[in-house]
């Protein structure tokens, strides 16, 4: 399992997520390149920009919900409840904890998303190599 240190000092523990899910969310940007060139998002206008922002939110929710294994501490849950958020669902509470209380800015959010995607890609490549080797020997 990989770790990801946030600027807040919290260290997150990451795990791979499903490549099919990430691909689907990237496609909702309308352009697969958008994630590799996030500065292009700033040049979008109107509905296209709205769509890309919505896609970023979904991608973040998926990565935070399934790619991070740490649970919010009790005091963080109390803070989230105090601002009116529902903490009944574990994955949603994790995403909200990181979004509202830990991650400093969009750049850090992008870095976290990128770290989980790289980890997932590495796992897929290793799994593909293992399948190829067992196919050769089998």
């Amino acid at each position, binding site marked *: 399992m990989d770790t990801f240190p946030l600027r807040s000092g919290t260290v997150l523990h990451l795990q791979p997520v*499903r*490549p*099919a*899910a990430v*691909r*689907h969310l*990237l*496609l909702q940007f309308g352009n*697969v*390149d958008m994630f590799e060139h996030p500065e292009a998002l700033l040049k979008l206008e109107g509905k296209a920009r709205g769509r890309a922002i919505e896609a970023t*939110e*979904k991608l973040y*929710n*998926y990565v935070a*919900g399934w790619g991070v294994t740490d649970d919010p501490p009790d005091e963080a849950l109390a803070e989230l409840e105090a601002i009116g958020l529902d903490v009944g*669902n*574990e*994955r*949603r509470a994790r*995403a909200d904890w990181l979004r509202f209380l830990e991650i400093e800015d969009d750049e850090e959010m992008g870095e976290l998303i990128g770290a989980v995607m790289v980890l997932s890609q590495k796992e*897929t490549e290793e*799994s*593909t190599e293992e*399948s190829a080797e067992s196919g050769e020997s089998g």
Partner: protein
Amino acid sequence: MTEYITKRGVKLEIGRIPRREIDGFTLKHVPPEPPVQEVEAFGGITEEMPILDDPAYLERLLAYYVKLGDEQIELIASAVRIVGPRSEVLLAELEDLRQLGLAEDDDWPAHLRFSVLADDEELGTVVGLVFYNSTVTEKGIAEASRAMAVTWMGQPVEGWKMPGTPGRYGQLFEARRAARHSGYTWEGFCGSTGPEQSAAVAFYRLSAKLDWLTSQK
């Protein structure tokens, strides 16, 4: 119908989709062409050679495969269903997806993508099973060829090499010829199962090869 148990222990029933939907999907998803360069061949004649490592082409190819893989799930989803009651773990995960705005309750392709199928390998397996049940596949052709057990001088006919010809054709053309060869209408052929369609193509290929081998004597 085929039964398949996923890596997460979910029992699926895999059916088929109309062949025409697969043909339509294939027509809609044409892979990008690489750029070409003129190369001098033997005798001063120039030939066009594809540049397969062109960076822009590789980017377009990656984008093509990403989109193809994603839309394949939408294509095959109607042929896949869970057998028996859904596990508590699966139900909880579907609730999580709904809470995070990732999938609605009736979005079955999203459930397959985000929850039911464990990884790309499993996705490929399930897509392969749907295609096997629905259309001509090399797996289906190989099975039918083995079952027909046609040999020439003690060796399976399909192993004998025939000389190449200038003609080239794709799977759709070969399927249409095989259908006519076996006496199907095209509608009847498309309405039959994947293994039946594959058997017709296997019969057509073996017949053509056997006729050629016989003519060589």
